[in-house]
Protein backbone atom coordinates (compact mmCIF):
# COMPACT_ATOMS: atom_id res chain seq x y z
CA UNK A 1 0.00 0.00 0.00
CA UNK A 2 1.40 3.39 -0.80
CA UNK A 3 -0.11 6.71 0.13
CA UNK A 4 -1.79 7.15 -3.22
CA UNK A 5 -3.91 4.06 -2.68
CA UNK A 6 -4.81 4.64 0.93
CA UNK A 7 -8.38 3.62 0.22
CA UNK A 8 -8.74 1.22 -2.69
CA UNK A 9 -11.89 -0.18 -4.23
CA UNK A 10 -11.93 -2.42 -7.28
CA UNK A 11 -15.30 -3.46 -8.64
CA UNK A 12 -16.81 -3.61 -5.18
CA UNK A 13 -20.35 -4.95 -4.97
CA UNK A 14 -22.90 -5.44 -2.25
CA UNK A 15 -26.02 -7.41 -2.98
CA UNK A 16 -28.73 -7.71 -0.37
CA UNK A 17 -31.09 -10.62 -0.48
CA UNK A 18 -34.45 -9.20 0.43
CA UNK A 19 -37.20 -11.63 1.32
CA UNK A 20 -40.71 -10.40 1.33
CA UNK A 21 -43.76 -12.20 2.53
CA UNK A 22 -46.26 -12.37 -0.29
CA UNK A 23 -48.78 -14.65 1.32
CA UNK A 24 -49.14 -17.43 3.84
CA UNK A 25 -45.84 -19.36 3.81
CA UNK A 26 -44.96 -17.78 0.49
CA UNK A 27 -41.96 -15.62 0.15
CA UNK A 28 -40.55 -13.66 -2.70
CA UNK A 29 -36.80 -13.31 -2.97
CA UNK A 30 -35.36 -10.25 -4.52
CA UNK A 31 -31.83 -9.02 -4.98
CA UNK A 32 -31.00 -5.43 -4.21
CA UNK A 33 -27.72 -4.38 -5.76
CA UNK A 34 -26.95 -1.62 -3.27
CA UNK A 35 -23.41 -1.18 -4.57
CA UNK A 36 -22.89 -2.34 -8.11
CA UNK A 37 -19.24 -2.45 -9.09
CA UNK A 38 -17.55 0.63 -7.69
CA UNK A 39 -13.87 1.38 -8.17
CA UNK A 40 -11.94 4.36 -6.86
CA UNK A 41 -8.78 5.34 -5.02
CA UNK A 42 -8.39 7.92 -2.31
CA UNK A 43 -4.85 9.08 -1.52
CA UNK A 44 -3.83 9.70 2.05
CA UNK A 45 -4.76 13.15 3.27
CA UNK A 46 -7.50 13.83 0.74
CA UNK A 47 -10.95 15.06 1.62
CA UNK A 48 -13.60 13.56 -0.63
CA UNK A 49 -17.31 14.16 -0.90
CA UNK A 50 -19.46 11.12 -1.61
CA UNK A 51 -22.90 12.14 -2.76
CA UNK A 52 -25.94 10.65 -4.39
CA UNK A 53 -29.71 10.44 -4.02
CA UNK A 54 -31.48 8.42 -1.34
CA UNK A 55 -30.79 4.73 -1.63
CA UNK A 56 -27.82 5.25 -3.95
CA UNK A 57 -25.53 3.08 -1.82
CA UNK A 58 -23.51 5.66 0.09
CA UNK A 59 -24.05 4.25 3.56
CA UNK A 60 -23.56 0.73 2.27
CA UNK A 61 -20.16 1.75 0.86
CA UNK A 62 -19.15 3.26 4.18
CA UNK A 63 -20.25 0.15 6.03
CA UNK A 64 -18.02 -1.93 3.80
CA UNK A 65 -15.13 0.48 4.32
CA UNK A 66 -15.45 0.05 8.08
CA UNK A 67 -15.86 -3.72 8.00
CA UNK A 68 -19.47 -3.72 9.21
CA UNK A 69 -20.56 -5.34 5.97
CA UNK A 70 -18.68 -7.86 3.85
CA UNK A 71 -18.66 -7.04 0.12
CA UNK A 72 -20.42 -9.55 -2.12
CA UNK A 73 -17.75 -9.07 -4.75
CA UNK A 74 -14.72 -7.04 -5.73
CA UNK A 75 -11.68 -6.02 -3.76
CA UNK A 76 -11.47 -3.44 -1.03
CA UNK A 77 -8.54 -2.23 1.07
CA UNK A 78 -8.15 0.54 3.62
CA UNK A 79 -4.57 1.25 4.68
CA UNK A 80 -3.71 -2.11 3.15
CA UNK A 81 -6.21 -3.90 5.40
CA UNK A 82 -9.22 -5.91 4.26
CA UNK A 83 -11.85 -4.33 6.52
CA UNK A 84 -14.26 -7.21 6.97
CA UNK A 85 -11.48 -9.72 7.66
CA UNK A 86 -9.50 -7.61 10.08
CA UNK A 87 -12.21 -5.39 11.43
CA UNK A 88 -10.86 -4.90 14.94
CA UNK A 89 -7.36 -4.22 13.69
CA UNK A 90 -8.66 -1.60 11.30
CA UNK A 91 -10.81 -0.04 14.02
CA UNK A 92 -7.71 1.46 15.62
CA UNK A 93 -6.96 3.38 12.47
CA UNK A 94 -10.35 4.68 11.44
CA UNK A 95 -12.93 6.99 12.93
CA UNK A 96 -16.60 6.76 12.02
CA UNK A 97 -19.46 9.20 12.52
CA UNK A 98 -22.96 8.06 11.64
CA UNK A 99 -25.20 11.08 11.50
CA UNK A 100 -28.22 8.85 12.01
CA UNK A 101 -27.06 7.10 15.14
CA UNK A 102 -24.64 7.67 17.93
CA UNK A 103 -21.57 5.63 18.77
CA UNK A 104 -21.71 7.03 22.30
CA UNK A 105 -23.24 5.24 25.27
CA UNK A 106 -26.78 6.55 25.43
CA UNK A 107 -27.22 6.64 29.18
CA UNK A 108 -23.81 7.91 30.16
CA UNK A 109 -22.41 11.44 30.30
CA UNK A 110 -20.21 12.34 27.36
CA UNK A 111 -17.14 12.34 29.56
CA UNK A 112 -17.69 8.71 30.58
CA UNK A 113 -17.99 7.63 26.96
CA UNK A 114 -14.72 9.38 26.18
CA UNK A 115 -13.00 7.80 29.18
CA UNK A 116 -14.10 4.40 28.01
CA UNK A 117 -12.81 5.08 24.49
CA UNK A 118 -9.51 6.14 26.03
CA UNK A 119 -9.05 2.73 27.66
CA UNK A 120 -10.66 0.71 24.90
CA UNK A 121 -8.42 2.12 22.17
CA UNK A 122 -5.39 2.19 24.50
CA UNK A 123 -4.79 5.85 23.74
CA UNK A 124 -1.67 7.14 25.51
CA UNK A 125 -2.72 9.53 28.29
CA UNK A 126 -1.00 12.57 26.87
CA UNK A 127 -2.54 12.07 23.42
CA UNK A 128 -5.94 11.57 24.93
CA UNK A 129 -5.73 14.76 27.00
CA UNK A 130 -4.49 16.74 24.05
CA UNK A 131 -7.11 15.44 21.62
CA UNK A 132 -9.95 15.79 24.07
CA UNK A 133 -8.99 19.35 24.99
CA UNK A 134 -8.75 20.29 21.36
CA UNK A 135 -12.13 18.81 20.48
CA UNK A 136 -13.80 20.31 23.53
CA UNK A 137 -12.49 23.72 22.57
CA UNK A 138 -13.16 23.62 18.85
CA UNK A 139 -16.48 21.83 19.01
CA UNK A 140 -17.70 23.75 22.03
CA UNK A 141 -18.29 20.72 24.21
CA UNK A 142 -17.22 22.18 27.54
CA UNK A 143 -20.70 22.58 28.97
CA UNK A 144 -21.88 19.21 27.70
CA UNK A 145 -19.31 16.83 29.15
CA UNK A 146 -21.36 15.92 32.20
CA UNK A 147 -24.67 15.58 30.36
CA UNK A 148 -25.97 12.09 29.54
CA UNK A 149 -25.98 11.56 25.80
CA UNK A 150 -29.72 10.97 25.64
CA UNK A 151 -30.29 14.50 26.92
CA UNK A 152 -28.19 16.14 24.22
CA UNK A 153 -29.84 17.82 21.27
CA UNK A 154 -29.15 16.41 17.84
CA UNK A 155 -26.51 19.00 17.02
CA UNK A 156 -24.82 18.66 20.39
CA UNK A 157 -24.77 14.89 20.08
CA UNK A 158 -23.29 15.10 16.60
CA UNK A 159 -20.44 17.26 17.86
CA UNK A 160 -19.95 14.79 20.70
CA UNK A 161 -19.81 11.96 18.19
CA UNK A 162 -17.27 13.70 16.01
CA UNK A 163 -15.02 14.20 19.00
CA UNK A 164 -15.42 10.54 19.97
CA UNK A 165 -14.35 9.44 16.51
CA UNK A 166 -11.12 11.42 16.72
CA UNK A 167 -9.72 10.72 20.18
CA UNK A 168 -7.56 7.87 18.94
CA UNK A 169 -5.96 9.86 16.10
CA UNK A 170 -7.52 7.90 13.24
CA UNK A 171 -5.81 8.12 9.87
CA UNK A 172 -9.12 8.18 8.08
CA UNK A 173 -12.45 9.59 9.12
CA UNK A 174 -15.72 8.46 7.55
CA UNK A 175 -18.66 10.77 8.03
CA UNK A 176 -22.10 9.59 6.99
CA UNK A 177 -24.27 12.71 6.91
CA UNK A 178 -22.51 14.56 9.72
CA UNK A 179 -24.45 17.78 9.21
CA UNK A 180 -27.93 16.26 9.11
CA UNK A 181 -30.28 18.34 11.21
CA UNK A 182 -27.67 20.88 12.29
CA UNK A 183 -28.40 24.59 12.43
CA UNK A 184 -26.37 27.06 10.39
CA UNK A 185 -23.94 27.89 13.17
CA UNK A 186 -23.31 24.27 14.12
CA UNK A 187 -22.80 23.36 10.49
CA UNK A 188 -20.24 26.12 10.09
CA UNK A 189 -18.47 24.98 13.24
CA UNK A 190 -18.34 21.36 12.12
CA UNK A 191 -17.08 22.30 8.66
CA UNK A 192 -14.36 24.52 10.03
CA UNK A 193 -13.32 21.79 12.41
CA UNK A 194 -13.09 19.22 9.62
CA UNK A 195 -11.16 21.57 7.39
CA UNK A 196 -8.60 22.19 10.14
CA UNK A 197 -8.37 18.50 10.91
CA UNK A 198 -7.63 17.71 7.30
CA UNK A 199 -5.16 20.55 6.92
CA UNK A 200 -3.24 20.14 10.17
CA UNK A 201 -3.24 16.40 10.68
CA UNK A 202 -3.75 15.38 7.05
CA UNK A 203 -6.48 13.02 8.16
CA UNK A 204 -8.13 11.43 5.14
CA UNK A 205 -11.82 12.28 5.12
CA UNK A 206 -14.69 10.64 3.24
CA UNK A 207 -17.94 12.45 3.69
CA UNK A 208 -21.50 11.77 2.56
CA UNK A 209 -24.09 14.48 2.71
CA UNK A 210 -27.22 15.83 1.13
CA UNK A 211 -26.13 19.40 1.85
CA UNK A 212 -24.01 20.40 -1.11
CA UNK A 213 -22.68 23.39 0.74
CA UNK A 214 -20.69 20.90 2.80
CA UNK A 215 -19.06 19.66 -0.36
CA UNK A 216 -18.53 23.13 -1.81
CA UNK A 217 -16.81 24.30 1.34
CA UNK A 218 -14.79 21.20 2.13
CA UNK A 219 -14.04 18.94 -0.78
CA UNK A 220 -12.04 19.53 -3.91
CA UNK A 221 -12.98 16.12 -5.14
CA UNK A 222 -16.45 14.74 -5.29
CA UNK A 223 -17.80 11.35 -6.22
CA UNK A 224 -21.38 10.97 -7.32
CA UNK A 225 -23.04 7.60 -6.93
CA UNK A 226 -26.43 6.59 -8.23
CA UNK A 227 -28.04 3.16 -8.17
CA UNK A 228 -24.85 1.71 -6.79
CA UNK A 229 -22.68 2.99 -9.63
CA UNK A 230 -20.17 5.77 -9.69
CA UNK A 231 -21.44 8.33 -12.20
CA UNK A 232 -18.91 11.09 -11.57
CA UNK A 233 -15.51 11.30 -9.93
CA UNK A 234 -13.57 14.51 -10.17
CA UNK A 235 -13.38 18.16 -9.23
CA UNK A 236 -16.49 19.84 -8.00
CA UNK A 237 -16.15 22.48 -10.73
CA UNK A 238 -16.12 19.80 -13.40
CA UNK A 239 -19.61 18.75 -12.44
CA UNK A 240 -20.95 21.77 -14.31
CA UNK A 241 -19.62 20.56 -17.61
CA UNK A 242 -20.75 17.02 -17.10
CA UNK A 243 -24.16 18.15 -15.95
CA UNK A 244 -24.61 20.53 -18.94
CA UNK A 245 -25.41 23.27 -16.51
CA UNK A 246 -26.60 26.74 -17.36
CA UNK A 247 -26.02 30.17 -15.93
CA UNK A 248 -28.76 32.70 -15.62
CA UNK A 249 -28.67 36.29 -16.76
CA UNK A 250 -31.18 38.51 -15.00
CA UNK A 251 -31.93 41.74 -16.85
CA UNK A 252 -34.04 44.69 -15.75
CA UNK A 253 -35.49 46.61 -18.69
CA UNK A 254 -36.97 50.13 -18.63
CA UNK A 255 -40.48 48.82 -19.04
CA UNK A 256 -42.46 45.65 -19.49
CA UNK A 257 -41.62 44.11 -22.89
CA UNK A 258 -42.28 40.80 -24.64
CA UNK A 259 -39.60 38.13 -24.07
CA UNK A 260 -36.22 39.13 -25.45
CA UNK A 261 -35.55 37.65 -28.90
CA UNK A 262 -32.03 36.89 -29.98
CA UNK A 263 -32.82 34.97 -33.15
CA UNK A 264 -29.35 33.75 -33.99
CA UNK A 265 -28.62 32.40 -30.50
CA UNK A 266 -30.55 29.12 -30.00
CA UNK A 267 -28.73 28.20 -26.79
CA UNK A 268 -30.08 31.26 -25.03
CA UNK A 269 -33.68 31.24 -23.94
CA UNK A 270 -35.91 33.30 -21.73
CA UNK A 271 -37.04 31.20 -18.81
CA UNK A 272 -39.11 33.72 -16.90
CA UNK A 273 -40.64 37.17 -17.32
CA UNK A 274 -41.88 39.26 -14.42
CA UNK A 275 -42.83 42.79 -15.37
CA UNK A 276 -39.73 44.58 -16.64
CA UNK A 277 -37.46 41.82 -15.29
CA UNK A 278 -36.48 38.83 -17.44
CA UNK A 279 -34.42 35.69 -16.78
CA UNK A 280 -32.30 34.22 -19.57
CA UNK A 281 -30.57 30.87 -19.36
CA UNK A 282 -27.34 30.30 -21.28
CA UNK A 283 -24.64 27.56 -21.22
CA UNK A 284 -22.31 27.83 -18.24
CA UNK A 285 -19.35 27.41 -20.55
CA UNK A 286 -20.26 30.47 -22.66
CA UNK A 287 -19.13 33.98 -21.81
CA UNK A 288 -21.78 36.46 -20.65
CA UNK A 289 -20.14 39.56 -22.16
CA UNK A 290 -21.19 39.22 -25.85
CA UNK A 291 -24.67 38.28 -24.74
CA UNK A 292 -24.96 41.39 -22.57
CA UNK A 293 -23.66 43.55 -25.42
CA UNK A 294 -26.27 42.24 -27.80
CA UNK A 295 -29.11 42.75 -25.37
CA UNK A 296 -27.92 46.28 -24.58
CA UNK A 297 -27.87 47.03 -28.33
CA UNK A 298 -31.46 46.00 -28.90
CA UNK A 299 -33.25 46.69 -25.60
CA UNK A 300 -33.51 49.51 -23.03
CA UNK A 301 -31.30 47.90 -20.36
CA UNK A 302 -31.36 49.33 -16.81
CA UNK A 303 -29.56 46.72 -14.72
CA UNK A 304 -28.30 43.15 -14.93
CA UNK A 305 -26.75 40.34 -12.90
CA UNK A 306 -25.39 36.88 -13.64
CA UNK A 307 -26.31 33.90 -11.47
CA UNK A 308 -23.93 30.96 -11.28
CA UNK A 309 -25.48 27.56 -11.82
CA UNK A 310 -26.89 26.00 -8.76
CA UNK A 311 -24.85 22.90 -8.00
CA UNK A 312 -27.89 21.25 -6.55
CA UNK A 313 -29.84 21.41 -9.78
CA UNK A 314 -26.77 20.25 -11.69
CA UNK A 315 -26.60 17.13 -9.61
CA UNK A 316 -30.34 16.61 -9.66
CA UNK A 317 -30.08 16.57 -13.46
CA UNK A 318 -27.30 14.05 -13.25
CA UNK A 319 -29.37 11.69 -11.13
CA UNK A 320 -32.21 11.56 -13.60
CA UNK A 321 -30.03 11.37 -16.70
CA UNK A 322 -28.29 8.29 -15.31
CA UNK A 323 -28.31 5.61 -18.04
CA UNK A 324 -28.81 2.87 -15.43
CA UNK A 325 -32.35 4.05 -14.84
Amino acid at each position, binding site marked *: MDDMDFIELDGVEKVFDVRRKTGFMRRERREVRAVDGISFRVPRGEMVGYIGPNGAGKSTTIKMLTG*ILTPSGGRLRVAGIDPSRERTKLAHRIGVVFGQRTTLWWDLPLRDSYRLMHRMYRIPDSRYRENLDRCVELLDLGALLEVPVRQLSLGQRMRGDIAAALLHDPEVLYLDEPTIGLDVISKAKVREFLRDLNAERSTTVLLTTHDLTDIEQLCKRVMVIDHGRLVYDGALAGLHEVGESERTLVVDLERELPPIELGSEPSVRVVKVEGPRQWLAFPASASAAPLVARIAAGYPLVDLSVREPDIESVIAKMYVSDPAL
Partner: protein
Amino acid sequence: MAEIQAERTAAPPPVVFSERSRLVEGVRAYGLIVAMWLRSTMAYRASFVMTTVGNFVSTAFDFVTIMLMFAHVDVLGGFTLPEVALLYGTSATAFGLADLVLGSMDRLGRRVRDGTLDTLLVRPVPVLAQVAADRFALRRLGRITQGLLVLGYALVTLDIAWTPVKVLMLPMMVLSGAAIFGAVFVVGAAFQFYAQDASEVQNAFTYGGTTMLQYPPTVFAKDLVRGVTFVVPLAFVSWLPALYVLGRDYPLDLPRWVAGLPPVVAAGCWVLAGLAWRVGLRSYRSTGS
Protein backbone atom coordinates in the same frame (compact mmCIF):
# COMPACT_ATOMS: atom_id res chain seq x y z
CA MET B 1 23.61 10.15 18.40
CA ALA B 2 22.62 9.26 21.93
CA GLU B 3 20.72 12.51 22.12
CA ILE B 4 18.70 11.73 19.04
CA GLN B 5 17.85 8.36 20.49
CA ALA B 6 16.67 9.97 23.70
CA GLU B 7 14.52 12.41 21.80
CA ARG B 8 12.95 9.62 19.82
CA THR B 9 11.87 7.75 22.89
CA ALA B 10 10.51 10.92 24.47
CA ALA B 11 8.16 11.57 21.56
CA PRO B 12 4.57 10.44 22.13
CA PRO B 13 4.36 6.77 21.30
CA PRO B 14 2.00 5.89 18.48
CA VAL B 15 -1.07 3.87 19.35
CA VAL B 16 0.33 0.40 19.08
CA PHE B 17 -1.90 -2.48 18.29
CA SER B 18 -0.53 -5.87 19.00
CA GLU B 19 -2.23 -9.10 18.09
CA ARG B 20 -3.35 -10.14 21.53
CA SER B 21 -5.50 -13.14 21.81
CA ARG B 22 -9.11 -12.25 21.27
CA LEU B 23 -10.06 -13.84 24.55
CA VAL B 24 -7.75 -11.59 26.54
CA GLU B 25 -8.93 -8.56 24.59
CA GLY B 26 -12.54 -9.55 25.14
CA VAL B 27 -12.17 -10.05 28.87
CA ARG B 28 -10.33 -6.76 29.20
CA ALA B 29 -12.97 -4.87 27.25
CA TYR B 30 -15.69 -6.56 29.25
CA GLY B 31 -14.02 -5.39 32.44
CA LEU B 32 -13.68 -1.83 31.16
CA ILE B 33 -17.32 -1.53 30.16
CA VAL B 34 -18.58 -3.20 33.32
CA ALA B 35 -16.47 -0.89 35.45
CA MET B 36 -18.05 2.08 33.73
CA TRP B 37 -21.58 0.82 34.28
CA LEU B 38 -20.78 0.07 37.91
CA ARG B 39 -19.61 3.60 38.41
CA SER B 40 -22.77 4.98 36.93
CA THR B 41 -24.94 2.50 38.89
CA MET B 42 -23.25 3.52 42.12
CA ALA B 43 -24.12 7.13 41.45
CA TYR B 44 -27.67 6.10 42.33
CA ARG B 45 -26.93 3.99 45.37
CA ALA B 46 -30.46 3.99 46.74
CA SER B 47 -31.87 2.76 43.47
CA PHE B 48 -29.19 0.06 43.32
CA VAL B 49 -30.05 -1.18 46.80
CA MET B 50 -33.74 -1.24 46.02
CA THR B 51 -33.44 -3.11 42.72
CA THR B 52 -31.04 -5.62 44.26
CA VAL B 53 -33.43 -6.31 47.13
CA GLY B 54 -36.23 -6.61 44.58
CA ASN B 55 -34.20 -9.10 42.58
CA PHE B 56 -33.45 -11.05 45.77
CA VAL B 57 -37.08 -11.19 46.87
CA SER B 58 -38.54 -12.08 43.49
CA THR B 59 -36.07 -14.92 42.94
CA ALA B 60 -36.41 -16.15 46.54
CA PHE B 61 -40.10 -16.81 45.89
CA ASP B 62 -39.05 -19.94 44.04
CA PHE B 63 -37.65 -21.38 47.23
CA VAL B 64 -40.63 -20.19 49.27
CA THR B 65 -42.79 -22.26 46.91
CA ILE B 66 -40.70 -25.32 47.63
CA MET B 67 -40.89 -24.73 51.39
CA LEU B 68 -44.66 -24.44 51.18
CA MET B 69 -44.78 -27.79 49.41
CA PHE B 70 -42.78 -29.37 52.19
CA ALA B 71 -45.34 -28.08 54.68
CA HIS B 72 -47.64 -30.77 53.29
CA VAL B 73 -45.20 -33.56 52.40
CA ASP B 74 -42.03 -34.86 54.01
CA VAL B 75 -40.34 -35.90 50.80
CA LEU B 76 -40.58 -34.70 47.21
CA GLY B 77 -39.76 -37.37 44.65
CA GLY B 78 -37.89 -39.16 47.42
CA PHE B 79 -35.87 -36.11 48.46
CA THR B 80 -36.00 -34.23 51.77
CA LEU B 81 -36.09 -30.44 52.05
CA PRO B 82 -32.34 -30.05 52.77
CA GLU B 83 -31.55 -32.29 49.81
CA VAL B 84 -33.76 -30.27 47.50
CA ALA B 85 -32.14 -27.15 48.96
CA LEU B 86 -28.77 -28.42 47.80
CA LEU B 87 -30.09 -28.90 44.26
CA TYR B 88 -31.76 -25.53 44.40
CA GLY B 89 -28.83 -23.64 45.89
CA THR B 90 -26.26 -24.93 43.44
CA SER B 91 -28.34 -24.38 40.32
CA ALA B 92 -29.63 -20.99 41.45
CA THR B 93 -26.11 -19.80 42.23
CA ALA B 94 -24.72 -21.13 38.98
CA PHE B 95 -27.53 -19.57 37.00
CA GLY B 96 -27.19 -16.31 38.95
CA LEU B 97 -23.52 -16.08 38.03
CA ALA B 98 -24.22 -16.66 34.34
CA ASP B 99 -27.10 -14.19 34.45
CA LEU B 100 -24.90 -11.56 36.11
CA VAL B 101 -22.13 -11.93 33.55
CA LEU B 102 -24.11 -12.52 30.34
CA GLY B 103 -27.74 -11.73 31.14
CA SER B 104 -27.62 -8.49 29.14
CA MET B 105 -27.30 -10.40 25.91
CA ASP B 106 -31.02 -10.77 25.39
CA ARG B 107 -31.06 -7.18 24.14
CA LEU B 108 -29.00 -8.18 21.12
CA GLY B 109 -32.07 -8.92 18.99
CA ARG B 110 -33.18 -5.32 19.19
CA ARG B 111 -29.75 -4.08 18.23
CA VAL B 112 -29.78 -6.36 15.21
CA ARG B 113 -33.22 -5.20 14.16
CA ASP B 114 -32.57 -1.48 14.49
CA GLY B 115 -29.00 -1.67 13.20
CA THR B 116 -27.34 -0.16 16.26
CA LEU B 117 -25.01 -3.15 16.33
CA ASP B 118 -23.12 -1.17 13.65
CA THR B 119 -21.64 1.05 16.29
CA LEU B 120 -20.20 -1.91 18.21
CA LEU B 121 -18.61 -3.28 15.06
CA VAL B 122 -16.46 -0.22 14.50
CA ARG B 123 -14.78 -0.51 17.89
CA PRO B 124 -11.53 -2.39 18.29
CA VAL B 125 -12.81 -4.99 20.77
CA PRO B 126 -14.85 -8.18 20.36
CA VAL B 127 -18.55 -7.59 19.86
CA LEU B 128 -19.49 -10.41 22.23
CA ALA B 129 -17.76 -8.64 25.12
CA GLN B 130 -19.50 -5.38 24.29
CA VAL B 131 -22.92 -6.95 24.05
CA ALA B 132 -22.46 -8.94 27.25
CA ALA B 133 -21.22 -5.98 29.26
CA ASP B 134 -23.82 -3.54 27.98
CA ARG B 135 -25.88 -2.16 30.88
CA PHE B 136 -24.24 -4.51 33.32
CA ALA B 137 -26.83 -5.00 36.05
CA LEU B 138 -25.30 -5.51 39.45
CA ARG B 139 -28.77 -5.96 40.92
CA ARG B 140 -28.54 -9.53 39.65
CA LEU B 141 -26.41 -10.14 42.74
CA GLY B 142 -29.80 -10.58 44.42
CA ARG B 143 -30.33 -13.93 42.73
CA ILE B 144 -26.84 -15.12 43.59
CA THR B 145 -27.30 -14.07 47.19
CA GLN B 146 -30.46 -16.08 47.65
CA GLY B 147 -28.89 -19.06 45.89
CA LEU B 148 -25.93 -18.95 48.25
CA LEU B 149 -28.20 -18.60 51.29
CA VAL B 150 -30.21 -21.66 50.31
CA LEU B 151 -26.97 -23.52 49.58
CA GLY B 152 -25.68 -22.53 53.02
CA TYR B 153 -28.89 -23.76 54.62
CA ALA B 154 -28.52 -27.10 52.81
CA LEU B 155 -24.91 -27.56 53.90
CA VAL B 156 -25.74 -26.78 57.52
CA THR B 157 -28.73 -29.11 57.75
CA LEU B 158 -27.54 -32.00 55.58
CA ASP B 159 -25.76 -34.92 57.15
CA ILE B 160 -23.11 -35.80 54.59
CA ALA B 161 -20.03 -37.97 54.92
CA TRP B 162 -17.67 -35.42 53.37
CA THR B 163 -14.74 -36.62 51.32
CA PRO B 164 -12.21 -34.37 49.55
CA VAL B 165 -13.87 -35.15 46.22
CA LYS B 166 -17.28 -34.18 47.54
CA VAL B 167 -15.91 -30.92 48.94
CA LEU B 168 -14.26 -30.05 45.62
CA MET B 169 -17.44 -30.98 43.82
CA LEU B 170 -19.26 -27.92 45.20
CA PRO B 171 -17.19 -25.06 43.71
CA MET B 172 -16.65 -27.17 40.60
CA MET B 173 -20.35 -27.61 39.96
CA VAL B 174 -21.23 -23.98 40.61
CA LEU B 175 -18.54 -22.69 38.24
CA SER B 176 -19.05 -25.29 35.53
CA GLY B 177 -22.79 -24.86 35.86
CA ALA B 178 -22.42 -21.11 35.40
CA ALA B 179 -20.32 -21.80 32.31
CA ILE B 180 -22.92 -24.17 30.87
CA PHE B 181 -25.70 -21.67 31.42
CA GLY B 182 -23.43 -18.98 29.98
CA ALA B 183 -22.95 -21.01 26.81
CA VAL B 184 -26.72 -21.33 26.51
CA PHE B 185 -26.98 -17.54 26.79
CA VAL B 186 -24.45 -17.12 23.99
CA VAL B 187 -26.16 -19.66 21.72
CA GLY B 188 -29.45 -17.90 22.41
CA ALA B 189 -27.84 -14.60 21.48
CA ALA B 190 -26.47 -16.10 18.27
CA PHE B 191 -29.99 -17.11 17.26
CA GLN B 192 -31.11 -13.52 17.76
CA PHE B 193 -29.17 -12.67 14.61
CA TYR B 194 -31.79 -14.66 12.70
CA ALA B 195 -34.95 -14.32 14.74
CA GLN B 196 -35.30 -11.25 16.85
CA ASP B 197 -37.60 -12.93 19.36
CA ALA B 198 -35.22 -15.84 19.84
CA SER B 199 -34.58 -14.49 23.33
CA GLU B 200 -37.95 -15.95 24.35
CA VAL B 201 -36.77 -19.40 23.32
CA GLN B 202 -33.50 -18.82 25.09
CA ASN B 203 -35.38 -17.84 28.24
CA ALA B 204 -37.20 -21.16 28.13
CA PHE B 205 -33.85 -22.90 28.36
CA THR B 206 -32.21 -20.62 30.89
CA TYR B 207 -34.94 -19.44 33.26
CA GLY B 208 -37.02 -22.52 32.55
CA GLY B 209 -34.00 -24.78 32.89
CA THR B 210 -32.95 -23.38 36.22
CA THR B 211 -36.46 -23.78 37.62
CA MET B 212 -36.45 -27.41 36.54
CA LEU B 213 -33.07 -28.08 38.11
CA GLN B 214 -34.36 -26.80 41.43
CA TYR B 215 -36.44 -29.98 41.76
CA PRO B 216 -35.15 -33.55 41.96
CA PRO B 217 -34.91 -35.37 38.62
CA THR B 218 -37.23 -38.06 39.98
CA VAL B 219 -40.28 -35.80 39.67
CA PHE B 220 -39.88 -35.39 35.90
CA ALA B 221 -40.70 -37.67 33.00
CA LYS B 222 -37.81 -39.80 31.73
CA ASP B 223 -37.79 -38.20 28.29
CA LEU B 224 -37.47 -34.75 29.73
CA VAL B 225 -34.55 -35.87 31.90
CA ARG B 226 -32.97 -37.47 28.86
CA GLY B 227 -33.34 -34.20 26.98
CA VAL B 228 -31.60 -32.09 29.60
CA THR B 229 -28.83 -34.67 29.88
CA PHE B 230 -27.96 -35.34 26.27
CA VAL B 231 -29.42 -32.50 24.22
CA VAL B 232 -29.16 -29.33 26.29
CA PRO B 233 -26.84 -30.70 28.96
CA LEU B 234 -28.30 -28.80 31.89
CA ALA B 235 -28.32 -31.93 34.06
CA PHE B 236 -24.58 -31.43 34.44
CA VAL B 237 -25.13 -28.06 36.05
CA SER B 238 -26.31 -29.44 39.36
CA TRP B 239 -28.26 -32.67 39.22
CA LEU B 240 -25.46 -35.16 38.56
CA PRO B 241 -22.75 -33.63 40.76
CA ALA B 242 -25.25 -32.88 43.53
CA LEU B 243 -26.59 -36.42 43.45
CA TYR B 244 -23.01 -37.61 43.81
CA VAL B 245 -22.51 -35.40 46.86
CA LEU B 246 -25.79 -36.65 48.32
CA GLY B 247 -24.86 -40.26 47.51
CA ARG B 248 -28.15 -40.78 45.67
CA ASP B 249 -28.94 -42.77 42.56
CA TYR B 250 -28.50 -41.11 39.18
CA PRO B 251 -31.31 -40.89 36.69
CA LEU B 252 -31.15 -42.98 33.51
CA ASP B 253 -28.72 -45.48 35.12
CA LEU B 254 -25.77 -43.25 34.31
CA PRO B 255 -22.37 -44.37 35.64
CA ARG B 256 -21.00 -42.69 38.83
CA TRP B 257 -18.10 -40.97 37.12
CA VAL B 258 -20.34 -38.64 35.07
CA ALA B 259 -20.41 -36.42 38.17
CA GLY B 260 -16.90 -35.32 37.23
CA LEU B 261 -17.87 -34.34 33.71
CA PRO B 262 -19.29 -30.82 34.15
CA PRO B 263 -16.04 -28.99 33.31
CA VAL B 264 -15.68 -31.05 30.14
CA VAL B 265 -19.31 -30.51 29.20
CA ALA B 266 -18.91 -26.78 29.87
CA ALA B 267 -15.86 -26.58 27.62
CA GLY B 268 -17.70 -28.42 24.86
CA CYS B 269 -20.68 -26.10 25.19
CA TRP B 270 -18.44 -23.07 24.84
CA VAL B 271 -16.80 -24.37 21.71
CA LEU B 272 -20.24 -24.82 20.17
CA ALA B 273 -21.40 -21.47 21.50
CA GLY B 274 -18.34 -19.75 20.03
CA LEU B 275 -19.02 -21.28 16.64
CA ALA B 276 -22.69 -20.38 16.75
CA TRP B 277 -21.82 -16.82 17.69
CA ARG B 278 -19.34 -16.51 14.87
CA VAL B 279 -21.82 -17.77 12.29
CA GLY B 280 -24.51 -15.49 13.67
CA LEU B 281 -22.31 -12.41 13.65
CA ARG B 282 -21.22 -13.12 10.09
CA SER B 283 -24.83 -13.13 8.98
CA TYR B 284 -25.38 -9.62 10.31
CA ARG B 285 -26.28 -7.25 7.50
CA SER B 286 -27.10 -4.02 9.21
CA THR B 287 -30.14 -2.01 8.12
CA GLY B 288 -30.92 0.38 5.31
CA SER B 289 -31.07 3.46 7.50
